[in-house]
């Protein structure tokens, strides 16, 4: 553990960017316009600084094996509760912040091209930088309370960005939905921290001492705390039952979707569970619970994604599905596999979203895949990178998605969780199917109009190409031993894992072949069905799946209407009748009393004089007797 003064600058760089951009934006709208280039330089420069600092620390860690810690000051000191404004740069945190800053930076660059000419250009970059800063606070936090600041920060920024075009009511509603669904999770998270603090008593609240003292706490309190923290993770990482906000979050501009889905926000839940790995390893049964939540979320989202028509919603459901895989891994104790999937997913999902954004911009904000196919535009770089992303997410070797997904499924198989393994396999099939359905409709299905070439900005295509290289190559970072790799990510994060993969090479080969075959069959089915699909006769949006299993409607009836009824009851009955009645009646009593007293004031001068006389006489008599005059 080494002290360093660099760690906090990873956070401060984007935070300063946010403040500068915000200030300049105010100047821009109040006084005189500032050219977009200023916002672009600040907006993309600061994440780059953060990335370079992280890289420096990372290279040093590789060399020396140090971990870093920086305590700025004691933030709260109440009795034996001691909360320091401290930041921790251990293997896990640096691993996360490496790709958060890198992919975040690329998305910032992409956003320059995407948002060009938008009125709120400066505001957008201010929010964007703030988003990144919040995520980095979350990642680098040394104690759960600081982590919670970042946790709330990403929630706030996602709200601001989803409702970015706030003049449209739908966007505002989507923002509200994201914020409220996250509040439910955040409340669980907060309770989880409090429970953890109670369970551990007077221990200093930072991860190192929590881990050291975890054995002294009562198991039932720890289990409760672990569950509540996981409720927070469900909200942030869009797992059943708190996933409803994620598809609606597509209302925001596409770079935001890319940032939320790839680098920040949704990965926070997985990261948090990994951060509390010492807690989850100790609780019996919760791992399986997490894994099942993940498995069902993965399956559920994949089924819904097969019938969606909005390009961004398909991607949103696929994110939820992939997050399910990550939770399977962390639930079973294979934290490094889960985080490796976070990494590879960040690359290909950012790329897919950016590609989708490029298509949407080229076709003037058309998001329906059939309509996009009808007015097909020639976008060579975007279609090529899109294909790479689709292959990567489907799990075809040697693209990155294969290695990370296969590691998770192998883990489930080894742990004897065959049901989870089967669900995972079926989800992999569906993933390949719905991703290629989208690809075939968008780029392959015949179109009589022919193509029109659309110019795409360099700032959009360059990040895409970089990410494409990542999406192909990231898998080799954790190449399994049987394929001649060194498990670099697993080694880097080996401290977290509670179990190891140890299966015979034969089983491993068989599993790999099975998962490739499953993915390939998914692609084949999609090819049969959609490669020659007539895009002028789009599928009808009917049935259970196209309507997302009516979950939104169900939640609307059960939670929203119920909450509305309760609110109305409190408003009309408890507030109006009981509380107001009590307060108004007491005030009426005073008014009545006042009116009675006021009748003394009858404008009769002689009456006043008599009163004065009586009063003065009374005072005189009192003085006479009391002072003994």
């Amino acid at each position, binding site marked *: 553990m080494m002290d360093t003064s660099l760690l906090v600058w990873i956070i401060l760089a984007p935070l300063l960017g946010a403040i500068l951009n915000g200030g300049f934006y105010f100047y821009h709208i109040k006084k005189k316009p500032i050219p977009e280039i200023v916002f672009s330089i600040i907006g993309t420069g600061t994440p780059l600084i953060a990335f370079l600092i992280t890289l420096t620390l990372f290279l040093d860690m590789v060399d020396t094996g140090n971990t870093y810690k920086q305590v700025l000051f004691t933030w709260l000191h109440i009795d034996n509760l001691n909360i320091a404004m401290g930041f921790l740069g251990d293997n896990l945190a640096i691993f996360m912040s490496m790709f958060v800053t890198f992919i975040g930076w690329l998305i910032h660059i992409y956003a320059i091209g995407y948002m060009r000419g938008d009125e709120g250009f400066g505001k957008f970059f201010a929010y964007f930088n703030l988003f990144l800063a919040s995520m980095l606070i979350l990642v680098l936090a040394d104690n759960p309370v600081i982590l919670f600041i970042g946790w709330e920060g990403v929630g706030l920024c996602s709200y601001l960005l989803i409702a970015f075009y706030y003049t449209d009511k739908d966007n505002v509603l989507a923002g509200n939905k994201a914020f409220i669904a996250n509040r439910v999770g955040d409340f669980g998270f907060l309770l989880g921290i409090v429970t953890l603090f109670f369970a551990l008593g007077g221990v200093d609240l930072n991860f190192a001492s929590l881990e050291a003292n975890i054995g002294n706490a009562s198991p039932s309190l720890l289990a409760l705390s672990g569950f509540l923290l996981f409720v927070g993770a469900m909200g942030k990482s869009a797992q059943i039952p708190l996933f409803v906000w994620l598809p609606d979050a597509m209302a925001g501009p596409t770079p935001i979707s890319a940032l939320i889905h790839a680098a920040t926000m949704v990965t926070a839940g997985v990261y948090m569970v990994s951060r509390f790995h010492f807690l989850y390893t100790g609780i019996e049964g919760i791992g399986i619970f997490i894994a099942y939540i993940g498995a069902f979320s993965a399956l559920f989202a994949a089924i819904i994604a097969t019938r969606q028509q909005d390009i961004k919603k398909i991607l949103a459901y696929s994110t939820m599905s992939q997050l399910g895989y990550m939770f399977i891994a962390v639930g079973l104790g294979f934290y490094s596999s889960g985080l490796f999937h976070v990494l590879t997913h960040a690359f290909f999902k950012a790329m897919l979203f950016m590609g989708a954004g490029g298509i949407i911009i080229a076709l003037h904000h058309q998001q329906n895949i059939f309509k996009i196919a009808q007015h097909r535009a020639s976008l060579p770089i975007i279609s090529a990178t899109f294909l790479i992303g689709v292959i990567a997410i489907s799990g075809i070797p040697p693209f990155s998605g294969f290695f990370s997904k296969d590691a998770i499924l192998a883990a489930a198989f080894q742990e004897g969780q065959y049901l989870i393994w089967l669900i995972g396999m079926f989800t992999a099939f569906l993933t390949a199917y719905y991703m290629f359905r989208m690809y075939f409709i968008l780029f392959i299905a015949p179109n009589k109009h022919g193509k029109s070439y659309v110019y795409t900005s360099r700032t959009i295509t360059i990040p895409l190409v970089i990410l494409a290289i990542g999406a192909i190559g990231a898998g080799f970072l954790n190449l399994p031993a049987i394929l001649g790799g060194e498990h670099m990510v697993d080694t880097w994060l080996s401290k977290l894992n509670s179990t190891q993969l140890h299966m015979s090479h034969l089983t491993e080969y068989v599993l790999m072949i099975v998962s490739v075959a499953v993915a390939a069959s998914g692609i084949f089915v999609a090819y049969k069905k959609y490669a020659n699909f007539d895009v002028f006769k789009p599928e009808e949006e009917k049935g259970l799946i196209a309507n997302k299993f009516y979950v939104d409607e169900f939640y609307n009836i059960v939670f929203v209407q119920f909450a509305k009824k309760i609110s109305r009851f409190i408003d009309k009955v408890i507030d109006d009748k009981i509380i107001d009645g009590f307060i108004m009646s007491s005030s009426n009593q005073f008014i009545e009393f006042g*009116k009675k007293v*006021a*009748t003394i*004031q*009858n*404008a*009769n*001068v*002689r009456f006043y*004089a*008599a009163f004065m*006389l009586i009063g003065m006489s009374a005072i005189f008599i009192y003085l006479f007797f009391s002072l003994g005059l």
Partner: protein
Amino acid sequence: MISLTSYAFVSMILFSIGVIGVIARRNIFIIYMSIELMLNAVTLFLVTFARYHFNMDPQIITIMVISIAAAEAAIFFSVIILLYRSKKSLDTDIFTTLKQGEKL
């Protein structure tokens, strides 16, 4: 030699008459005269004590009171004239503008 008590007694009687006049009578002139009567009762008291103690200070106060009462009379009469003009009456009980609940 008339005793000090007698002077004090006369002065108190005068004062009481003044008080009763203010309280009991409705004519505004009578009230004014009653107020003057109370003032004079007090000045009489002061002058008595001045003589008794051979001290001139109360006499100075008395002169002050008389002169101020003269000035006050001028104001008082003009107010009475204004009141009379507004309601054509000198009955104090009909001037009830400041009563609780009275509309201006």
